């Protein structure tokens, strides 16, 4: 694949509540910062296409796409919505550029879960209306089942998941976006009550408000913007299937997506020294690292400390979602921002970013980014 450059990033929020702004103001704040970061570009003339990532039910608006253009400067321009994770939006942006449709594309995603009063009911609506809405009292039940299956497969213990929590919350202390970063011990995690077996509240990323805007440019144009763009070398997304037919215990969606993304990037998995993977639930980090092919037995590697900086591969060295919170469809972009920061600090040459859309979906996207 021809490389695509990331030439500007902007974000706003990443707090449990951003009551000072509406979702549209939040988009505006993030996009203004992204355009400044890209060298004060004017979206009305310098950007060819715009992509917004959101879902109607999260927004509480039946056609949320209506509100996409104005805060981005995308009015009277080709603007569209991809109802998916922000990283899927990046995938569409990359396709806009590679198809020759655009030179510069802006991808935006925002989330304001603090506006959602009935989170459980909204998530229930994502289940199949006939087979899936079983009236479960606990929204995390599917994650609980998945985690137990994973524990059986890998002989994992709760302590292992606690290790992930401790690592990520500690790593988050370096990250300005990490509202939930803290210094914990494994015992702190083990002593919590279960939200659902085997997960405690510390094992589950909390929701945060946030907006992220990313400016993408074709290879040739990116070099005009900046001497040091971050490159997207490969990107792909995949859906496993529905709840009834997907495989629990393993993240097949990321396996499919990562194989394609590596192939596009012509990268050897061993070259990858940093991974920014979805850790909405602590066990998911381990499952995702395995699906990405970065470890054959993530539990064993975790116990050996291979996922710390300096180990085999640094996994979520800036905290991941456990430290930053889960901003709904922005989750993938939040991990991408971490990867960009990490690469810019010069701590790695290549990194992989992997997102997941959360329960009850089996969809994820993988991007290989480099300096």
């Amino acid at each position, binding site marked *: 694949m021809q490389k695509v450059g990331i030439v500007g990033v902007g974000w706003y929020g990443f707090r449990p509540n951003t009551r000072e702004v509406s979702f549209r103001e939040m988009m505006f704040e993030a996009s203004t910062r992204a355009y400044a970061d890209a060298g004060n570009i004017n979206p009305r003339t310098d950007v060819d296409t715009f992509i917004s990532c959101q*879902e109607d*039910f999260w927004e509480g608006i039946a056609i949320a796409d209506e509100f996409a253009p*104005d805060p981005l400067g995308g009015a*009277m321009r*080709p603007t*569209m919505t991809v*109802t998916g994770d922000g990283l899927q939006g990046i995938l569409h942006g990359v*396709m806009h550029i590679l198809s020759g449709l655009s030179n510069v594309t802006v991808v935006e995603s925002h989330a304001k879960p603090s506006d959602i009063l009935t989170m459980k009911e909204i998530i229930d609506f994502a289940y199949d209306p006939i087979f899936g809405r079983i009236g479960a009292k606990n929204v995390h039940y599917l994650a609980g089942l998945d985690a137990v299956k994973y524990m059986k497969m890998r002989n994992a213990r709760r302590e292992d998941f606690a290790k992930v929590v401790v690592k990520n919350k500690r790593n988050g202390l370096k990250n300005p976006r990490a509202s939930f970063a803290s210094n914990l011990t494994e015992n702190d995690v083990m002593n919590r009550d279960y939200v659902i077996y085997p997960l405690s509240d510390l094992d589950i990323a909390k929701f945060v408000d946030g907006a992220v805007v990313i400016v993408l440019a074709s290879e040739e144009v990116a070099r005009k913007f900046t001497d040091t763009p971050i490159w997207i070398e490969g990107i792909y997304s995949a859906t496993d299937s529905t709840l009834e037919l997907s495989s629990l215990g393993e993240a097949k969606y990321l396996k499919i997506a990562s194989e394609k993304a590596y192939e596009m990037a012509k990268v050897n998995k061993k070259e990858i020294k940093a991974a920014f993977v979805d850790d909405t639930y602590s066990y998911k980090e381990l499952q995702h690292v395995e699906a990405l092919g970065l470890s054959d037995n993530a539990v064993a590697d975790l116990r050996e400390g291979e996922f710390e900086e300096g180990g085999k591969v640094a996994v979520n060295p800036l905290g991941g979602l456990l430290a930053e919170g889960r901003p709904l469809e922005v989750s993938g972009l939040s991990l991408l921002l971490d990867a960009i920061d990490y690469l810019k600090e010069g701590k790695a040459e290549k990194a992989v970013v992997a997102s997941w859309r959360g329960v009850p979906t089996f969809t994820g996207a993988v991007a290989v980014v480099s300096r």
Partner: protein
Amino acid sequence: MRTNLYFRRVAVIGAGLTLFKRRLLETPQELAWEASKKALDEAGLELKDIDCVVIGSAPDAFDGVHMKGEYLSHGSGGIRKMSSRVFVGGATGVMVPITAWYHVASGLCEKVLAVAEEKMSPARPHPQSVFRYIWDPIIEKPLNPNLIWIFAMEMHRYMHVNKITKEEIALVSVKNKKNALDNPYAQAAANITVDDVLKSEVLVWPVQLLDTSPVSDGAAAMVITSEDVARRYTDTPVWIEGVGWTLDNTEWTGRELAYPRYLEHAALMAYKMAGIERPNKEIDVIEPYDPFDYKELHHIEGLKIAKRGEATKLLKEGVFDKDGDIPSSPSGGLLGVGNPIAAAGLMKTISIYWQLKGTAGRMQVKKPVRTGLAQAWGDLMQASTVIVMRN
């Protein structure tokens, strides 16, 4: 937009539709699969050959499913492969083939299944109630507007500025419902007269019942592939040669409603790509979006097929009839076939595909056709998507 010659050519090689009906008993997934299967059969492909799936569906609230793309993915064959859903309100139907186009043109995918589905019937008490939640939550929602109100304003403005009468606009409804008599998938085909339209129930003046398209369930699907694949499977591929889309600002209250400038913008984008300089001379058959009869005329002007305010003149001359110079909505359009939002837009694209392939059966227009165009419109009267195809 870059205008270079390096676009990979993208072809349509198969399409399928379900019946459009007020209430279908199949689930949304079943509908999506029915259309997908027909499209795959027409293309001569199997599901395992498909490498990407593009899904289109308008408000999640119609089917009553959150993350509808994930839900429909299973029915659309998006299993263990790339699958994503795009959304631009009512304009989604044509955005789906546009998205499929760039999936292939970018080189990421070879064989794409583009599926659009909408099931409006589950909404209670009426699908219109979903539209109560499309407004700005702070400044518009307290007024409790209804979608037909704002279209009535637009229709009124269009009539006032261009000095057009309701009798003239009603001709569109008469034409489209008549065209739909030849369409085996149609829900609201009828032989009606202008008088029938003018005597039908007034919804919000000047919009009357027969000025509008019905509420429908339905699905549509297309198989879109790269040139190599298309050549292997068919001798008569139809090429996607131009795509364009534009969103205007959200504040519809501040816009001139008599003319869809966003559509002009989208059309020019598609024309530039397809190398069309004189749309009224170079395009042979069109499917402009017609949820209301005045919209067809409104859109024909935005597409620059007719000059501003002159679409009615051409309509009366018979230019847009099935045997006219530029047949418009030969399928019967939304007025005749039905309006399952996203599926309706894709149905229009499929109609053009069948026209260009010469397999439209009784819907086939009289004149020989080489270039066709389909268009959809949506959001708060602010979005338009345009696709140009050639055989």
